[in-house]
């Protein structure tokens, strides 16, 4: 990493600390609200520290909007989508980065071009396709359309252009290795760091996806985000239980983030420089 040009003064620390508090406070507040009772939250002086009701509220949330099913569904969907995106993107990204073939420029332009188009534009026919395939309210409705990602292909292409020397592939060819063999024993090992970053970003994005799941799934068989919506829509919404559900839905991603935050930060900055 390059040395920064300037030494930070006390003001820089003060501003950054204030900003950090602003970014972190809503998480803290989720914990506070999820561990209190509804009446404590609507008291004249609201509670500002965590209380004793956390597990009770989590139990309630698990019962109310089938959050348990939702967590399992989200895990299944996010894992399947991540595997699909990472694999299909690595294959296609390798082809775009290192192989010469007819139509390469056009296919790449189409792939990158669609990244600018809003997902809403495709949602209605997609919904009609799902209805026709009788997949409405079923998990494949959320998995199938997300198994590939134009961003993923572009990301892996950029990564492999830099990370994979042409000579390595040539050497494999000289040794008479088949194309598939080259991919397995030369490309995949080199691509692994890029695949890891793409995998983390994809998992987080899929876990947090809202628009398409809300269209394709019902509250009977939801992902976590769909379940959160129905949790907030009771006749007399109990804030502390809503927050307990929110905590459950956020926790898995926060754990991933806590463990891999540094790499995720690096991945986003890397993607930014290349993009």
């Amino acid at each position: 990493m390059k040395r920064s040009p300037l030494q930070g003064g006390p003001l820089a620390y003060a501003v950054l600390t204030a900003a950090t508090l602003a970014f972190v406070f809503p998480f803290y507040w989720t914990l506070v609200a999820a561990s209190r009772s509804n009446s404590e939250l609507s008291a004249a002086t609201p509670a500002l520290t965590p209380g004793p009701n956390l597990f009770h509220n989590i139990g309630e949330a698990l019962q109310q909007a089938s959050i348990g099913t939702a967590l399992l569904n989200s895990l299944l969907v996010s894992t399947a989508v991540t595997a699909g995106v990472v694999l299909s993107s690595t294959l296609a990204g390798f082809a775009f980065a290192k192989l010469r073939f007819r139509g390469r420029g056009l296919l790449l332009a189409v792939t990158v071009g669609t990244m600018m188009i809003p997902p809403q534009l495709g949602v209605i026919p997609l919904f009609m396709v799902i209805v026709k395939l009788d997949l409405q309210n079923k998990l494949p409705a959320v998995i199938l359309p997300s198994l590939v990602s134009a961003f993923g292909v572009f990301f892996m292409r950029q990564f492999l252009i830099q990370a994979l020397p042409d000579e390595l592939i040539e050497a494999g060819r000289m040794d008479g290795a088949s194309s598939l063999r080259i991919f397995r024993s030369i490309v995949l090992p080199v691509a692994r760091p890029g695949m890891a970053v793409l995998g983390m970003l994809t998992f987080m994005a899929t876990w947090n996806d809202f628009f398409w799941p809300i269209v394709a799934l019902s509250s009977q068989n939801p992902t976590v985000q769909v379940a959160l919506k129905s949790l907030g829509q009771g006749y007399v919404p109990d804030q502390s239980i809503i927050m307990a559900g929110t905590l459950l839905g956020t926790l898995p991603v926060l754990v991933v983030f806590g463990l891999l935050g540094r790499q995720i930060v690096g991945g986003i900055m890397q993607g930014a420089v290349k993009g």
Partner: protein
Amino acid sequence: MATISRPAPALPAQATRAARPRWGARLAPYGYLAPFFVLFAAFGLFPLLYTAYVSLHRVELQTADRMDWLGLQNYTRLFEDPFFWNALRNTFTIGVLSTVPQLLLALGLAHLLNYRLRGRTFFRVAMLMPYATSVAAATLVFAQLFGRDYGLINWVLAGVGLSPVDWQADTWASQFGVSAIVTWRWTGYNALIYLAGMQAIPGELYESAAMDGASRWQQFRHVTVPGLRPTIIFTVVVSTIGASQLFGEPLLYEGNAGGGISHQYQTLGLYMYEQGWSFFHLGRAAAVAWVMFLLIVVLALINAAIAARRNRTDR
């Protein structure tokens, strides 16, 4: 290449072995692309194009198989609907309210993060945490913080002697509330993008600026900002596109597709959802989707024009 078309059986065994990988090598790229493009065509490209066709028909949610030709009627109905214009206006105001502060804050934070600091990894990770939450979770938390009667924000306002704000019913206050969620989620992400751009600016530029007696502020204005221009344009385009599609935040802010009692913060994305999945008019929702797309194209062109013009005046 001519050897490839030669009939393989006529060749000795060794030559066939040499010829086979060539066939393979020629077709292999398409094999690598196939998994992506098959699904991409079915679930990505086809729906995009088919939306235009759907928007010219009457299609109802309950009978999604049946399509009756309408011509441009979905579009004319749309333009006669005051709620469409309301949603368009709200999308614009919420877009400005969320994008402008978000990018300015991100630029300032990135500048600070670019200093030599203790614990800078900590600050970077903390700043990206909101990005790790979902729209749904973030909105539910903020909706609670912005509550009229028991919300923490009004409690703090009362504590410093200000009168409470109705963050949900009041037009400007509710649009500010929705924008605050967007700003909270994306400021850190954009700060990291800017930081990456800043680290690509050569340090010598700062050194020579400092030798010329430039203050920190002048260095920021005359070295950092010009060096970041492509990155800034990139974030402006991406945030503008994101703002024109806002959906989850206004949907969950109070939990209805109308975007508030008097539709005071209904965005185009929410309006489209309401047309399609609350009123069951898929054809009309498709027309909204196309209008949104055209809007994005126009915004992208305006962005490009501004960028081109600024480049010209610089020279």
